[in-house]
C-alpha cells in the first residue's frame, strides 16, 4: 500500500460519506466546549486556531463543509478555550511516531507495516507501565496516521506540570540507567537491573531488550562503536530467553555499561518528549483524515487486533484508479 496524499475531492468524499461525528471518542466529545480546535486547510500547518464548538452539531457542519486537510483539538481543557486562557488541566500524552523510532529495523523512508508494528510494540510496553507501575487506568490509544498517541485522562496526572511530565516520560521510556551499586551497613553490593523483576529496573530491562532485539548493524549510537553493536546483535538470542547474565558476560561488563548507556539515551526518543511536556498542545483529532498519508486517525479499542492497513484506510483509497 502506498501512502499518497488525499486530494481535495477525496477529502470532501471522506467527510461527506464516511466520517461521522459520533466517531470522535467520548473523552473528547464530553469536554468539547472546553477544548481549543485547530485546523489545517491548505496542508501548510494548523494556522486556523482558537476554534471552539459549542456542540457536536457545529463541529459536524464545520467538518462537512470545510473538509479540512487536517483537524486537531487541544489536549488542554480551558475555561476560555477561544483565548487559550483559564487553563484547567491537560491530558498526559505520548506520541510514538513510527518514522522517529530510534532503532528501526525496516529502513523505510516513511512508515511501513514493519515500523508501524514496532511502534505498536512500544505502545504496548508504555501502556503496561502506565497501568502496572503508575497505576493509571483512564488510558486511550489512538492511531495517528503515522504512529500512535497514548492519551491519559486520570485525574491524578492531568494537573501535573511539565517537569513532572518529563519525569514520567523518562520512567516510561527507560532513559535513566538504574544504579547497579548499592550499599548496606558499609558493604557494597552489585545488583544489575535485570536481576530486579519489578519497578523501574524492570521497565528499563524491558526497553533495553526491545531495543537490542531490533538492533541493526548500520545503527549509530553515542559512545557505542560498530563492533559493540555487532556483538550485541551476535548474542541477542540470549535475551530472547532472558539469559541476561550470559549476554552481559559475552559482551563484557565495561562494554555492557557502554551499551546500555547508549540505549538509554536513544530511548528518550521513543516518544516525542516535546509533545508530552507541552501543556497546551493540539493533537490530531481522532476520526479525522490524515490527508498526508490518506489514513484515518482512529481510536483503538483493542491494540492486539488493530491493523492500521485494514482498520484505518478510508474507502476512497480502494477506489483509486492507479
Amino acid at each position: 500500500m502506498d501512502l499518497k496524499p488525499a486530494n481535495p475531492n477525496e477529502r470532501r468524499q471522506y467527510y461527506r460519506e464516511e466520517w461521522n461525528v459520533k466517531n470522535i471518542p467520548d473523552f473528547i466529545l464530553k469536554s468539547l466546549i472546553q477544548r481549543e480546535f485547530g485546523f489545517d486547510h491548505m496542508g501548510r500547518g494548523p494556522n486556523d486556531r482558537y476554534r471552539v464548538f459549542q456542540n457536536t452539531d457545529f463541529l459536524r457542519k464545520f467538518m462537512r463543509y470545510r473538509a479540512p486537510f487536517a483537524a486537531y483539538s487541544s489536549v488542554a481543557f480551558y475555561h476560555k478555550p477561544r483565548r487559550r486562557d483559564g487553563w484547567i488541566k491537560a491530558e498526559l500524552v505520548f506520541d510514538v511516531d513510527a518514522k522517529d523510532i530510534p532503532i528501526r529495523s525496516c529502513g523505510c523512508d516513511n512508515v511501513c507495516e514493519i515500523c508501524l508494528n514496532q511502534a505498536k510494540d512500544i505502545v504496548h510496553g508504555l501502556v503496561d507501565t502506565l497501568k502496572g507501575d503508575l497505576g493509571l487506568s483512564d488510558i486511550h490509544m489512538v492511531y495517528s496516521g503515522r504512529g500512535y498517541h497514548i492519551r491519559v485522562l486520570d485525574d491524578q496526572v492531568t494537573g501535573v506540570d511539565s517537569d513532572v511530565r518529563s519525569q514520567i516520560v523518562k520512567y516510561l521510556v527507560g532513559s535513566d540507567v538504574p544504579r547497579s551499586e548499592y550499599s548496606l551497613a558499609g558493604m557494597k553490593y552489585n545488583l544489575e537491573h535485570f536481576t530486579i523483576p519489578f519497578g523501574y529496573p524492570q521497565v528499563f530491562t524491558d526497553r533495553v531488550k526491545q531495543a537490542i532485539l531490533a538492533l541493526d548493524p548500520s545503527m549509530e549510537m553515542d559512545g557505542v562503536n560498530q563492533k559493540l553493536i555487532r556483538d550485541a546483535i551476535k548474542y541477542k538470542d540470549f535475551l530472547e530467553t532472558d539469559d541476561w547474565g550470559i549476554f552481559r558476560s559475552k559482551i563484557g561488563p565495561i562494554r555492557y555499561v557502554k551499551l546500555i548507556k547508549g540505549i538509554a539515551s536513544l530511548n528518550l526518543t521513543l516518544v516525542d518528549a516535546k509533545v508530552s511536556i507541552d501543556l497546551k498542545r493540539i493533537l490530531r483529532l481522532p476520526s479525522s483524515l490524515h490527508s498526508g498519508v490518506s489514513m484515518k486517525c482512529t481510536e483503538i479499542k483493542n491494540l492486539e487486533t488493530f491493523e492500521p492497513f485494514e482498520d484505518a484506510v478510508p474507502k476512497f483509497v480502494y477506489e483509486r484508479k492507479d
Partner: protein
Amino acid sequence: MVSISFLNPLSPEGKDIVRELGSFEGISQDIPELRSIVTHNPSQEIADDDEIPSNYLELALKRMEWYIKKKNDREFNGRRYAFLSDSAITKYDVISFYLLCQAIGVKFGPNSRETRVMVESQGDLVRERLGKLHVDEGRMMVEQSLQLLLADDTVHWTFFEELLSSRKIRLTDLILDQGELILDQEDFLQRFGPRIKHRNPESMYQLLIGDELKELIMVKLIMQETEDYIKQVHEKARIMVEPNPILLQLAEDVAEVLSEPMQHYGYGYGSGGGGGGPMKIGPLNPLAFPPCVKKAMEGIKSGGRNDAIVLFMTPFISYARLYPDVFRMNITKRVSDQDPNLESVENEILPLIYEAAQNCVPPLFDDQPQEKVNINAKLGFGMHSSLKMEHEGETTWYTPMSCEKIKLHLPHLCHPDDVCKKIGNPLSYYNRMIWEVRRQEKESSDDGQSDDGQGKSNNDNENSTEGNLKEDSKSVNDNQSADDKKGEA
C-alpha cells in the same frame, strides 16, 4: 529519646515547642542553658567565646553559617559546630528554625536564594543529625517521621508531585507498583517476593529500599515542608501591616552570612601570575553587575519578559559565572567544560535566573512555564525540561548580548553609568568591576599591598584588550543571530 522535632521542626512536637514560647518577647535574651549545652559537648571545639551561640538568633545564624562554611570553606572544621547535632539543643533549635523561616519568608520570599539555602541547609542538617544517631535509633526516627509525613500506609506516587516537579527526587529512584510507592518490607515481600528468583527477597528489600530510600524521602519531604512553610509566611506577610523588626534584622544578618563566601573565597581569589592567563572563575558577585542586569534582577514589570530573561539574563549570568573571558579567549565552549557536574548551573546560575523570572510581573513561569525549556536551550542543552548531559550540544550556549543590542531590543533595561562608557558588553562591565570591587574590599581590609599590584596589572590587561574585545563580541554575537533564525524556522 530524641524528639522528632529535632529532625522536623514542623512536626506536631515542634509546633508545641513554638506554642509554649508564645511570643517574640525576650527572643534576643541570653539563654545560659544553651551556652552551657554547647560548652559541655565533648566533641565541641571552641576557639573563641564569640563562637558560642547565646540566644535563639545567634543559634539561627550558626545554622546558616555551618552550611555555608561547609560548602565553601576548604578549611571547614565540623567540630566547631558539633552542638548542632546535639539533641539537647532541640527546643532552642526548633525556635531558631522558625525564626529563620519567618525572617526569610518576610524579607526575601519563597523564590530567593536565601530560601534555597535555608531549605538545603535543613536537608543537610537532618542528614548530619541522623548520621550521628545510633543506627537503631535513627531507623526508628525515620520510621516515625515518615508516618507523620505520609499520613497513610499506601501513598500514590503523585503525592510527591512537588518533589518531582522541583527535581528533588527522581521518579526512577522510587519503587512503584500499581501506582503506589513501596516502602514497607512486608508490603514489598508480598508484592514482589514470588517474582524474585535466585535471590533472597529480604536482602533485596534492604538494598533497594531499606534505610536509604526511606531516609531520602523523609529528608526531601522535610525540605519541601520547609519551603512550603516559608511560602506561607511570605503570603501572610504581604497582608500584614508591619513585620517584626527582629525578623528583619535577622534576615539582614542571614543575607550577610550568605554573602560571606563571595567576599572571602570569591572571584579571582588567589589568581596567580601576571595578567596573561585566563581569568579565574568564581562565585558571582552581584555588587559588580552592570545597571542593566541589576535592573533585570528586580524583575521586568513592563512587557518583554521573555527576551529579558531568556536571551539577556541567561547568557549573562551563565557566562559571568562560568566563562567570563569568553570574548577575550574567543574559543567556543560548552557549559560542562566549565562546570562538569553542572553544580554551579543547578545551584547558582538557574536559581538566579529563576529569581529574576519570578520577580517579573506577572512572574514569568506562572503563565509561561515552557520558558524553562528555552532557558535550558540557551545554555546549550536542547529543548528539554531538565538539564541532561546527553542533550548538551543540541543547541548552542548563547553568548551575552552586546550593549548595542540591548539598547535596541530591551531599551528600558539600559541606564548607563560611568563605567558603561568604556565597555561594549555587560560582561566586560562585570569583569572590570569585579576587580574594582575586590580592590575596594582589599583596601578596606588594609593588608593588600602585594595583591593590590596584581589586581592593577589585571586591570591594565583588560584595557589593552578592549579593542579586541568589542570585535570578538561582535563576531560571536553574529553567530548567535544566525542561530536565532535557525531556531525559529
